[in-house]
């Protein structure tokens, strides 16, 4: 039954080009900006700019300024790739319950034999699959771009591999479960989307501090983050299923 829900959700998504385009726009920017910045620094920036960046991050790596700055970008930009798997499923998942209610499809759906678990899982996987695919494609393009501009193999390193392959799915699950929880409580899908999107703020803050040179996140941090997010995922999934009360979903607007 979950497969039936999943198939329908993916079919609807495939027929929503505007939504897919809006989902793809953020990864595009996340890849293009740092790669173009590095290319500009390599080809056009004066030595002074390179020197000041090296001073800011206290980098004295061998291999010349381009490799050093490529290395900095590789480390500092990673949190942005962790924002993607949280933010992208929210664009779909926040519509999951509120959207059904708005289109008046919720009552016919709940009047069928489909279980609560099948609805939640089907909708969740449908939100996560395109988000993860876009995140992974963006990561491959970013690594290839940085390596090409730097002229040597800088990425992926161990932290990147772990973050993209392990942490990204956990974060996607987190963003999606948060969106399902919010969507089951908030009537308006747009309001649900906005509220769910606030879950990315801690990661954005990390990114800002990292880029400002205030903190330096290493593999240990990402391991710990993965453990914490996994626990949060379990709690949120349990909450999502508990909040998905068929009667309450139909009557709450009253």
């Amino acid at each position: 039954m979950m497969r039936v829900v999943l198939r329908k959700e993916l079919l609807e998504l495939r027929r929503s080009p505007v939504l897919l385009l809006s989902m793809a726009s953020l990864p595009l920017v996340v890849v293009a900006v740092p790669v173009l910045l590095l290319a500009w620094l390599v080809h056009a920036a004066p030595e002074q700019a390179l020197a000041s960046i090296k001073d800011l991050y206290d980098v004295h790596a061998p291999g010349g300024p381009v490799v050093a700055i490529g290395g900095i970008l590789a480390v500092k930009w990673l949190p942005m790739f962790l924002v993607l798997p949280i933010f992208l499923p929210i664009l779909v998942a926040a519509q999951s319950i509120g959207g059904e209610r708005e289109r008046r499809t919720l009552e016919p759906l709940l009047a069928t034999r489909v279980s609560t678990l099948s609805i939640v899982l089907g909708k969740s996987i449908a939100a996560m699959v395109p988000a993860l695919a876009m995140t992974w494609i963006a990561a491959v393009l970013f690594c290839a771009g940085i390596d090409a501009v730097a002229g040597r193999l800088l990425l992926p390193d161990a932290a990147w591999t772990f973050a993209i392959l392990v942490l990204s799915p956990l974060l996607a699950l987190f963003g999606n479960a948060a969106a399902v929880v919010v969507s089951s409580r908030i009537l308006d899908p747009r309001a649900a989307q906005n509220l769910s999107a606030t879950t990315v703020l801690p990661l954005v803050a990390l990114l800002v501090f990292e880029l400002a040179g205030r903190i330096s996140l290493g593999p240990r941090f990402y391991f710990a983050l993965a453990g914490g997010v996994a626990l949060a995922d379990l709690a949120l999934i349990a909450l999502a299923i508990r909040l998905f009360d068929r009667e309450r979903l139909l009557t709450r607007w009253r």
Partner: protein
Amino acid sequence: MAAIEAHGLSKSFGGRPACRDVSFAAERGEVFGFLGPNGAGKTTTLRMLAGLYAPDAGSARVAGCEISPGRPGGAELRARVGLLTESPGFYDRLTARENLLYFAELQRAPQPGRRCDALLDRFALREHADRPFAELSRGMKQKLAIARALVHDPEVILLDEPTVGLDPEATREVRGLIADLAAGNATIVLCTHHLDEVERLCSRAAFIAGRLVGIHEIRRGNLVRIELAEPFQPDAVRALCRSLRVSGTSLFIEPLADVPEIVAALVRAGARVAGVTPQQDRLEDAWLQLLAEARAA
């Protein structure tokens, strides 16, 4: 055994009662009407019978499945009940066939593809099957919604306002479809505020106005109105009538004997008969009388 038995169903939302003390029974194969103004509690009652809400008080047995406070009836009930919701509620980007197939699969209909094709043929939607739902006319959307209610071949069919918002042509078509369904063996509950719809399609109707006001049997036999010159207690002719209702100086009877014989008996008992006219059983009269009785009580 009745297909639906409801005993004192009550439901409120946020302390505001939506319906209370609704009791009735619908036999297998019967078309039973729910009549009442907007906001009277018809849809709430229907949703309880469909297993979407649990009642606050009372209980019901629908197609053999129990409904009681805290137990709205589970997947088993939903497998035996088909619900036409007030609004068609389909996915705009999916085609008519994809929409119907989705619900057929969710209801675990055997051979869902074939079942959908058969229903699309039956409802004259085959040539529109590959059009996105958003492009269908209001009448087509409603027919597709009725097809969805039937997709798993339910024992009980609950129809909530099936003709609301339809133009006269589509209304006629949908009423024809319901009449076809009624000719089958399914039990149908038709929820509407159109008296004529109930008169045409139902055998009995429950009047709901926050609570159950009364249940009226719709007779399509010969009803006679005897107009009297002054009020009179017609006890002398009760045995000659299948039913007898007094409204002021009017007697509405379903005769068991010949009408002249009944008139003669009335005259012998002292009544002054002013006129005799054949009469249709007007649901509107019954509705107004029941409302008046309820208000007086």
